[in-house]
């Protein structure tokens, strides 16, 4: 079972925190800080497995993390999950985010944290892996986003207009209208006298 999924940046600021076990709000913040402290100490070329900190269950639980540019993706799991499998799952998650946000970067996660939650909800449910097929996940997330948009009413008009233009199928406008060499025979008109 996955106990928690945390995303934070190189300075420890949380970008996403999802707990699948009950902790009080204070404990949750402490766990984020403790995990950041443990993970940030790690060198770049050591293995991606760590024993959990005391707050999250100590040596019973493992922290499996991956460091992408400015972000740490940390999954805290217990012994029933395959460590190497979780590493692959993190990879799938990040690739999914990449597809949904088009070259995802930290800013995307900052400003669209609710969307990240929605994507995650299609992958992991109740601490267990739900779906690992990237295309399937994206299809479902898109369908739900569409439902939201259709409900948005007048306030969603600008957004709808933008997406409509994006999806519009315009024929290719020719750049040079090259009619080619047409020999237009000019008729010999009699001159009016």
């Amino acid at each position: 079972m996955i106990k928690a999924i945390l995303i934070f940046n190189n300075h420890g600021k949380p970008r996403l925190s999802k707990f699948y076990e009950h902790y009080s709000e204070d404990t949750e913040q402490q766990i984020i800080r403790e995990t950041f402290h443990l993970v940030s100490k790690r060198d770049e070329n050591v293995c991606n497995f760590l024993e959990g900190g005391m707050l999250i269950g100590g040596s019973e639980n493992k922290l499996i993390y991956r460091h992408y540019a400015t972000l740490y993706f940390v999954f805290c799991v217990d012994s029933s999950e395959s460590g190497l499998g979780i590493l692959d799952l993190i990879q799938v998650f990040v690739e999914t985010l990449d597809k949904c946000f088009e070259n995802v970067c930290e800013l995307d996660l900052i400003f669209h944290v609710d969307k990240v939650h929605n994507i995650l909800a299609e992958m992991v449910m109740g601490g267990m892996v739900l779906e690992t097929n990237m295309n399937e996940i994206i299809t479902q997330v898109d369908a739900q986003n569409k439902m939201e948009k259709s409900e948005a009413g007048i306030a969603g008009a600008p957004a709808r207009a933008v997406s409509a233009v994006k999806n519009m199928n315009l024929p290719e406008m020719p750049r040079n209208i090259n009619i080619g060499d047409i020999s237009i025979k000019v008729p010999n008109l009699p001159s009016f006298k």
Partner: protein
Amino acid sequence: MPAPIRLRELIRTIRTARTQAEEREMIQKECAAIRSSFREEDNTYRCRNVAKLLYMHMLGYPAHFGQLECLKLIASQKFTDKRIGYLGAMLLLDERQDVHLLMTNCIKNDLNHSTQYVQGLALCTLGCMGSSEMCRDLAGEVEKLLKTSNSYLRKKAALCAVHVIRKVPELMEMFLPATKNLLSEKNHGVLHTSVVLLTEMCERSPDMLLHFRKLVPQLVRILKNLIMSGYSPEHDVSGISDPFLQVRILRLLRILGRSDDDSSEAMNDILAQVATNTETSKNVGNAILYETVLTIMDIKSESGLRVLAINILGRFLLNNDKNIRYVALTSLLKTVQTDHNAVQRHRSTIVDCLKDLDVSIKRRAMELSFALVNGNNIRGMMKELLYFLDSCDPEFKADCASGVFLAAEKYAPSKRWHIDTIMRVLTTAGSYVRDDSVPNLIQLITNSVEMHAYTVQRLYKALLDDISQQPLVQVSSWCIGEYGDLLVSGQCEEEEPIQVTEDEVLDVLEGLLVSNLSTPVTRGYSLTAIMKLSTRFSSVNRIKKVVSIYGSICLQMYSYSLQVQSTHPPCFTGSIYTSSLFYRFNLHVLYYLVSLLFQANDLLDLLGGNDVVPVIQTTLPTKPASAGGELLDLLGDLSLSSRTSLSLFLSFSFSHSPVITIHATNTTEADMTEFVFQAAVPKTFQLQLLSPSSNIVPALNQGSVTQVIRVLNPQKQQLRMRVKLTYTHKGSPIQDLAEVNNFPPQSWQ
């Protein structure tokens, strides 16, 4: 009232804050706006407000006032509202709040909604944070959805069922009929979650396990299809078809095949196939291989398969990927008990891992190396392990040293090798050796009678080099005290005997007494050694002189300790209770002195008058008397393993009157902080306390706090002092009071 700002605006605003205080201010302002908006029961913007609240919650600010709003959102008809509402419920609510039960009806309705995505939201929320009451109420709905043909819902229902079973195990039976044709699904998502559900049921109930054993052929077939199916773009991850599903199935097979011959038989072929055909160049392949290995080791597989599995693990150890190496070492540690010989074959690779840069790998390799040591490889392994001990991080040294001692004790090929190994450990990692090793080592040395001369010689030489490592010094002083005559007479067979005189030996031991590096315990050992040598050496006068100087201080400390003991019961830890060890030493010193006293009367003068001796005689509690009986045995064979819990040790030193210096040392494993020494004296005295060196007494005798006291005693009366010590130890504040009456006359005259 203007429309509440969007989430994006809020995020942008918060990001402009330059300090924590600024951020807090912005958030408080926004919280106030949100609160008033909630009060107005504004339906249009509730969704936006809750979204902002969830963001602030992630940053660590309180958001509990939004809980009811989440419920209102869930009850709304709009999908947008429901989405945020359910997300809020998952993040903000849990079974500790009564409010969550109000969700039950909403979820029930949503589970039967016409839109699959709404049903999905409800299942998701129930599966994440549903309490036992909610699960009981809604289990029927979940069970219905488990039988639906909609694969999107079916997979969610399966995981929701797992959650329900975890919360209310009695309901497991209810889901049994629905599992009948779960495995005939084509959709991988459903297959995956179904396998998870089956795994959960099998792990929880042996009856279920028996029932589902008949599924083994079907699982084997699915696995076979995955491997043989060739390239399938939907499920491909780095060239392997749905590795997640393969791993899950392998895990379920492991549970089903455990302790059952028939099932294990049915799996053998497929396991061999997976083990040999899987691509190992990427992590995915290795994940599958690893799971296969674990399964092979756990079920009743044939021996050929087991050897194959261990060889795969051995290959993992050579892999460049650190994760694989770590994971392989962990599994080998688990299997070394059952398949010892097979793991032995990979010993050299494991020992190489000791040199890895990664701390986690080094630790695993060390544990595994110790598990692999046996009578045949002890010499080679010990060489590697001692080399590791030299160069490893301090966090490993204590464990490694203990491991070396244990291994040496079990498999030492010869006594000399054993003693050499111990010497090596003491000299390289002496300060990390556990306290109880010292008495064990002394026991060992005593028992190897023929090695005494060699041992004492080597230890003496080690002492000449380095006196900072306390365990080494303690063992050495003890040996010199015991076998000093062998040392001086130069009778060593094992190696070139060294020429050393009695005076040189006494120089070294005296050096230990005065050195700042020596802890009180070490001083005790060296003093005892000196005294023991009085029976073995001829220069008794010198010994007497040394003993008199230090003996009086010892007696002070001893009588002080008696004083303290009479006011505190022995079981009260954290008091100024000198260790029974030092206590015994002081007693030892005392009895020795007394015995010397009867041999040479002039010693009485050296002890400084009549004040001291009567005190000892009258205030001796019965405990030391019985200790005295053993004491004579102590002289011969110090079994010092019975050490009670130690704490603070306070010693007074008197360099010249009227200055007294106190030294506080701490023999426990935790520092004593906020240490304050206070003293009170009778009216006729004046006391001046100068500032202490620090207020932290470091653990394990790593340093001491000193404080100078000036006593003005115009009436030249017997000095008495009441002492109060306050400090914090392991988080709890401790206070100690004691009275000291036995200051030697030199200090106040």
